[in-house]
């Protein structure tokens, strides 16, 4: 068991190395002097020299990488000249809305889509199955921002039930926070629900074809017991895997959704940083999201051992 965890952890190292190398190279691939690019358009030549010295830009490239990765590991993400803050401060300021959005979406989507998928599989070919599958194709096809604006139009503008845009910190006014989370979470959920209900249905259907399901029926167990006790637990591993991979969709969706609903989160920050060519911020955000994504998937990998006793190595 411990062995398994250690080996999973080790397997993550090359993945993160590739990510780090890519993010590091980003700046070098941009045309122009990296120091000047970082400093932005209004920088003085002193500032540029200062940056050059700090990043060791006169050193060979692999030394630069070591310096850069060392800084990153220490939480020293550099300075955003556009926002006139350190990147660390910037991220601390912007993390709450994104985290809130992600958690709300995840809970809502999983709670809804797994039962839907199971029911669709159980009643394969029924009206319910068709509706769930039809919704899932639709959910894959309609982009988040279109859904977001439709929801705003219906619930905020026409019905006036919910605020149109904006964010209230959870500590400031919980009700206001919740009110402003409903539509963004709903928007972001659509694609996620489509994905997970589909994979749940497919996995359960596949498990229902297994020999041991036949054995369970031959034992005289009721359909409900066969489904819940035998099928669902065996289908858990692929479902969890896709939830983990779906985090990527969630992160990408957050960028768009935050822009639609004017949430001052990391997604919005990414777009602002790209528009202002603020490379230290772009690099840090991408690195951070990737690390989060990899770590979540690592945790999911490890959680397989809870569901499947065969996974021990």
């Amino acid at each position, binding site marked *: 068991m411990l062995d398994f965890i250690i080996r999973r952890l080790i397997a993550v190292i090359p*993945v993160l190395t590739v990510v780090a190398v890519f993010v590091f190279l980003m700046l070098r691939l941009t045309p122009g002097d990296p120091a000047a690019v970082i400093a932005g358009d209004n920088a003085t030549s002193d500032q540029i020299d200062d940056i050059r010295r700090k990043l060791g830009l006169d050193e060979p490239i692999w030394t630069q990488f070591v310096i850069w990765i060392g800084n990153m590991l220490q939480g020293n993400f550099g300075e955003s000249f556009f926002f006139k803050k350190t990147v660390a401060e910037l991220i601390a300021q912007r993390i709450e809305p994104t985290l809130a959005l992600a958690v709300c979406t995840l809970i809502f989507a999983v709670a809804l889509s797994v039962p839907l998928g199971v029911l669709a599989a159980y009643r394969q070919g029924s009206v319910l199955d068709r509706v769930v599958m039809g919704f899932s194709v639709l959910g894959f096809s309609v982009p988040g921002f279109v859904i977001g604006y439709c929801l705003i139009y219906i619930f905020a503008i026409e019905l006036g039930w919910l605020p149109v845009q904006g964010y209230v910190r959870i500590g400031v006014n919980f009700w206001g926070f919740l009110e402003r989370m409903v539509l963004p979470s709903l928007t972001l959920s659509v694609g996620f629900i489509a994905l997970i209900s589909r994979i749940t249905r497919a996995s359960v259907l596949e498990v229902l074809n297994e020999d041991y399901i036949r054995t369970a029926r031959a034992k005289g167990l009721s359909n409900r017991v066969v489904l819940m006790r035998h099928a669902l637990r065996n289908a858990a591993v692929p479902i969890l895997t896709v939830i983990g991979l779906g985090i*990527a969709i969630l992160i990408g969706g957050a960028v768009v959704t935050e822009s639609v609903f004017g949430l001052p989160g990391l997604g919005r920050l990414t777009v602002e940083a790209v528009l202002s060519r603020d490379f230290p911020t772009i690099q840090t955000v991408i690195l951070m999201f990737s690390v989060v994504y990899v770590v979540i998937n690592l945790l999911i990998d490890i959680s397989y051992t809870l569901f499947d006793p065969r996974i021990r190595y």
Partner: protein
Amino acid sequence: MSTITEEVVDSASIAAASTKRKSLWLTAIKNPNVIIGGTILLVMLMVAILAPFLGTVDPTRIDPAGRNKKPGAEITMRLDDGTTVKRVALMGTDSLGRDVYSRVLYGARVSLAVGVAVAIIAVAIGVVIGLISGYIRWLDGIIMRIMDGLMAIPGILLAIALVSIWRAGLITVIFAIVVPDVPRVVRLVRSIVLTVREEPYVEGAISVGTPSWVLMFRHILPNCVAPLIVQGTFLAAAAILVEAALSFLGIGIPPEIPSWGNIMAEGRTLFRVFPHNILYPGIFLAFTVLAINIMGDGLRDTLDPKMSKKV
């Protein structure tokens, strides 16, 4: 007597096999999902090609007098030679007075071009890398680590990062979307190569002295065709969505080329008063992607039934 029994014994499996092989492409074309999706897509393609002949005007033409008109409003256009023409703005105009109907129809060109180009380029690059990875053992480890690393960066973020390096434009957007897709194609091709090369018929070909490249192209690669067509379809659908998202965020296709995403981006600020700027391109976008996805589902069910079990 014995030959008769042999025939009998295998007839069931032969029947199954022959239906599976012979009419694979035929059943794919006859699948209702493929027909429905394909038809919508074909209509969209015609719209894109015939955009100049469908009552459109120059989609980039700015008209300060005709700004922010609601759909159906009658506007007077002043032409270059000084004459004026009255026409009905079917989908209204945007805040610069550009005709949304024309922009939406021309926008179909960008979306479809991006979808097709991304699918083809990603599949082409992916096949080459996938074959190398599946066939040359010592390169496999390195290639797959790089692919894993690329897959660890959420797709849209990777595309955003690449756009930020290259500056926005049609070609850069296409490549920015291709890069995150390549590892997915590589994985598919590699897994097929690794499975198929264990098949007895491939080992049989090895033992009759078939050279590696013949082995690859004659015995292994044909197995990839159907799954790749299916995957390519889904890649195209996703690419259209990503392009729209990038353009919507203002970091994709620049506004002088109309695309559904940047029409919506333009409409964001005045959304409360003039929702049509987002509604119409949104409908076109959703319909197109839906059509491709429906077609993809149909193709997958018929061409690649093993994959339909997965998702």
